[in-house]
Structures are given as structure tokens and as C-alpha cells.
């Protein structure tokens, strides 16, 4: 039973990681908590749901959703987030919260509160490997996560623009002095972050429902993952996602499914208090308050 729990946990965790990567990137570079991050997941899931209704397979729909989400992210940064970056702390926190409330209710208004899901021939498909049952769409989600995370890693490490993003994350003033257009960096980072969460929406829709507040459920987990893995750490987001997935499966099995949320909020509080830098993050981030 325990190996199966671990495998199921890892499979769920990969999806959490995909949601958390975008959140972490935006957190690390723009130094804001994007409370609306989950709502981008919701938007992408509704997008692929409606494309499925037009007989487009969710995985094919990803090719359409991804650029749309990137544009949506870029527009949000350019016309909303940018005006908050130089503002007081409460403006930064509450503008994305306002955006989150507005998007959630817009979805409620447009699509109603029903739980919607797609039907595909492969969504319940599983195969057995060494007596472990593995869900095919969840495995696909993990492959997508791994490929895109590795892609992002090489982009950040080895391209000029990736280096510009990392430089801005380290010290935006110095980066600007070195001739980096940090406005463009912010816009691109936000676009990449929303594209990642859009991707998460596309691989999630075959295995999960979409409803107006679906983002809240996932973004709370993503916050836990980001803090656990460490701010600004890509590796941290991936490892953190897997860890939370496994913890969730174990607590669901050994304690009670309904109590698993308490368990991961407990983990969250413990990490925030004991090691706010997370597993792979920089120490002291909680003290500078990410100004």
C-alpha cells in the first residue's frame, strides 16, 4: 500500500508543482504574492473545457490556451500590476486579491456555479507497473511538468533574457543600471508565470472538475508548495509539489481525507515559522518582507 501511496502522491504533486512554478517565478521576480494566480488556472480550465465542447481535445487545446494565457498575463502586468509595484505594501497585496475576487465572480456570472468536467477516452485509463496502478492523464501531466520545468531552467540559466530575469530577481536597481529593461522583464515573467498555470489547467481538466473557485483550492496548496520549496527556487517548487502531494496522500490514508487540509496547513505554518526560507530558498526573505 505504501508504495502505491507514494506513487499517487507524486502524480498529484507534479500538478501542484506546475501550479506553483508560475507563482514562485512571479513571487521571486516581481516580489508580489499573486492572489489571482489560481484564477488564471480557473480561466485556463474553462478555456479548455469550452474548447472540448467544440470537439477539441484538451491536450491539443493547450496549444491555443498557452499563448492566450501568456498574453493575458502580459496584459495584466502591463496595465494593472505595474502601477502597484512602486506603491505601499497594502496596495500590492490587495490589488491581486481584488483581481481574484473579480475573476471568480465573473466566472460565476458567465458559467454559473456548476462543476463541469470533460469526457475523454483516456481520462480513466490506468496501467499497472510492478503492481502499482498509474493513471495515464496524471502521468502525462507529470511529463508535461518535467519537460516544461527543464525548459524553463535552461531558459533562465542559458539565455540572455533568462539571465536578465535572474538579475532582476536578485537586485532590480542594479539590473536596471546594467541596461536591463526591467519593465519588459516583469511583463515577460508574469506572462511566463500565467502560461505555466495555463498549462497546469490544460493537463488538469481531464482529471478534475472546473468551477468558479477551483483556483482557490489549488492556489492555497501552491502557496504551501512555494513556501516549503523556497522562494525563487525552481527546484524547490518541483520538490515541494511532490512532497505536498505525498504528504496529502499519506494523511488522507492514515488519518482522514477530510483532515488532509489541516495537515498541509500545519506543514505550512511549521515551515513559515521554523524555516521561512524553505528547503531551497534564500535565508532572510521573510525579514526583508520582499520589498
Amino acid at each position, binding site marked *: 500500500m505504501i508504495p502505491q501511496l507514494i506513487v499517487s502522491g507524486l502524480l498529484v504533486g507534479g500538478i501542484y508543482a506546475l501550479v506553483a512554478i508560475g507563482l514562485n517565478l512571479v513571487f521571486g521576480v516581481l516580489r508580489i504574492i499573486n492572489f489571482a494566480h489560481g484564477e488564471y488556472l480557473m480561466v485556463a480550465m474553462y478555456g479548455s473545457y469550452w474548447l472540448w465542447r467544440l470537439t477539441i481535445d484538451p491536450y491539443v487545446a493547450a496549444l491555443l490556451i498557452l499563448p492566450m494565457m501568456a498574453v493575458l498575463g502580459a496584459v495584466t502586468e502591463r496595465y494593472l500590476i505595474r502601477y502597484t509595484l512602486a506603491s505601499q505594501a*497594502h496596495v500590492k497585496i490587495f490589488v491581486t486579491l481584488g483581481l481574484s*475576487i473579480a475573476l471568480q465572480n465573473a466566472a460565476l456570472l458567465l458559467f454559473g456555479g456548476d462543476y463541469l468536467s470533460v469526457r475523454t477516452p483516456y481520462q480513466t485509463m490506468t496501467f499497472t507497473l510492478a503492481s502499482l496502478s498509474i493513471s495515464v492523464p496524471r502521468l502525462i501531466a507529470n511529463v508535461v511538468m518535467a519537460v516544461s520545468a527543464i525548459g524553463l531552467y535552461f531558459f533562465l540559466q542559458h539565455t540572455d533574457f533568462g539571465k536578465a530575469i535572474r538579475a532582476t530577481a536578485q537586485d532590480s536597481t542594479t539590473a536596471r543600471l546594467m541596461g536591463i529593461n526591467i519593465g519588459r522583464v516583469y511583463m515577460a515573467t508574469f506572462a511566463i508565470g500565467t502560461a505555466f498555470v495555463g498549462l497546469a489547467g490544460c493537463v488538469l481538466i481531464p482529471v478534475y472538475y472546473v468551477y468558479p473557485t477551483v483556483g482557490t483550492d489549488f492556489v492555497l496548496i501552491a502557496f504551501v508548495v512555494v513556501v516549503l520549496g523556497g522562494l525563487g527556487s525552481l527546484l524547490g517548487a518541483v520538490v515541494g509539489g511532490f512532497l505536498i502531494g505525498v504528504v496529502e496522500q499519506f494523511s488522507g490514508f492514515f488519518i482522514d481525507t477530510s483532515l488532509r487540509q489541516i495537515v498541509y496547513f500545519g506543514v505550512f505554518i511549521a515551515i513559515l515559522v521554523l524555516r521561512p526560507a524553505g528547503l531551497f530558498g534564500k535565508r532572510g526573505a521573510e525579514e526583508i518582507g520582499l520589498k
Partner: protein
Amino acid sequence: MSVPQLFDLLILTLVWAGMAAAWNLLAGFAGQFSLGHAAFIGIGAYAAVIPAMRYQLSPWVGMLGGVVVAGLLAFFIASISLRMRGPFFTLLTIAFSEVVRLIALYAKPLTNGAEGIIVELQPGIMNLYFLEKWPFVVLAGLYASGMYLLCASIRRSRMGHRLLALRDDEDAARSLGVEVYRARVLITLISAALTSVGGAVLAMYTQYIDPDSTLSFLLSVELSLITIVGGLGNAAGPIVGAFLIVPLERLLRSWFGGVLFGLHGLIFGILLIVILLAAPNGVLLAIGNWRSRWISRRHA
């Protein structure tokens, strides 16, 4: 609008004004943005109701118990988050209030879970239970005005100056001899305890509590919305904010609630963004600024 409806609106507005004032003590004066104050509203509500319904204890006693429990929880949260600033503190408070909500949801023998508790007691001042609305108008009015006076006097006191100093520059405040940690723990405790009083009044007025209506994250958001609209860090801000937001919310709900589900939430989200961008220090200061600009233009 009939008199009971007017009273209803007035009671809700006043209670929210008082609770937002308590939130403002921590957010506006100390610069710590809690999005977990729903936990304290809920603690106040359950503390007033459970002992009254189960052990025939006066809700006044329960309210006092709620103040103690909320204060203890706040003391704990504040002491483990002394070095946290900005978003980290916000995330921590969200986590705590979610834990409290989940406990209320699953501790069925005590809280009756998602079904909630209907409050039914012998009417009278001892039981804080009235069949008419006017006693609650008095009670809510006392709570809101008490909160306003307290905030205004804290703002002018040494404590207020210390808090504002640590909010604006913690290191400078510390170097000038402000005991930053003590001030922060104290104000978190006061803010939480006073929020729970509002939660108790709200519960006794609505005569029904469940985790959704007393502990939801949206209640924390509501407190911040009211305060930010009125004016963060301004003693009169939450009062003004409540008189704008609560009736507006009621109005939007009655216009669109039945037909266009979600429209009032959409309007509120957009309103929050617009206020933050156009008048980040609230309408009170914004009006003051426009007025002084207008006056100076007239005299120019």
C-alpha cells in the same frame, strides 16, 4: 425601506465598522496585514453561542471567554511571526484562520459542523437575546463608537506613535528605543480580542452561526475592503468605509443577487482595485486632498 430593514442595515454596518476598526489597529497602525481575522470573528461567535446553548451560560460570559481565546491565539501567532513582514505574515494568518475554520467544520460534537447552530434563548439583556431589533442597534452603536474612541486614543497615545514608527521603519524605530516586538504582540492581541467581541455581537444578532458565515476567508477580505476604502491607519476610516461598503453590498445583493449571481462580487473586486489605484489611502484622505486642492486653486 421599512424601519426593521433600516435597523438591520444599521446594525450590520455598525458591527462591521467596529470589527474593521479592530482590524485597522493591526493593519493600519502596525502595518501587519492580516487576512485571517475571520478566525477571531468565528471564535467570538462560537464562544458566545456554544456555552449559552449547551450550559445556559450567559453569552456575556461566553463573549469574555472568546476575548481570552482570541487573544491567546493572537498572542501565539504574533510571537511566532515576530520577524515576518509583508506577505509572509499575511500568508501565516490565512493558514491559521483556515485551520480554525476546518476545526469548526469537523469538531461536530461541539460546533455541529456545517449544519451550524440556531440560537434560541430566553429574551433579555442577560441572555443578549432580543426579539426586537432596537437593542442591537444600541449594542452595535456602543461597540462601533467604543472602537472608534479607542482607536482614536491609541492613535494619539505613546503606543500609537510607537506603532506608526515601527510600521514606517522598523529598524529606525528599534534604534530609537521602541520595543518593536512587544508593541507588535500587544497590538495583535488587542486587535484580535476586539474583533471577537464583534463576532459575538454579530452571532447574537443573526441568531444562527455556521463555519461559512463566521469563519470564511471572505470575512477577512471584507474587513480589509472596508478599512482600505475608508482609509487605512485612520481612526475614522473603518467607520466611513463601513457606511459606504455595507449598504452598497446590501443594495447590490438585492438588485442582482437573485438574477445575476456573481455580479455584486465582480463589482466589489473591481471597486477594490479602483480604490487602491485611485485613492490608496482611502476616500477620507482623497476627499481631503481634492478639497484642499480646490481651495488652493480658488485662492490662487
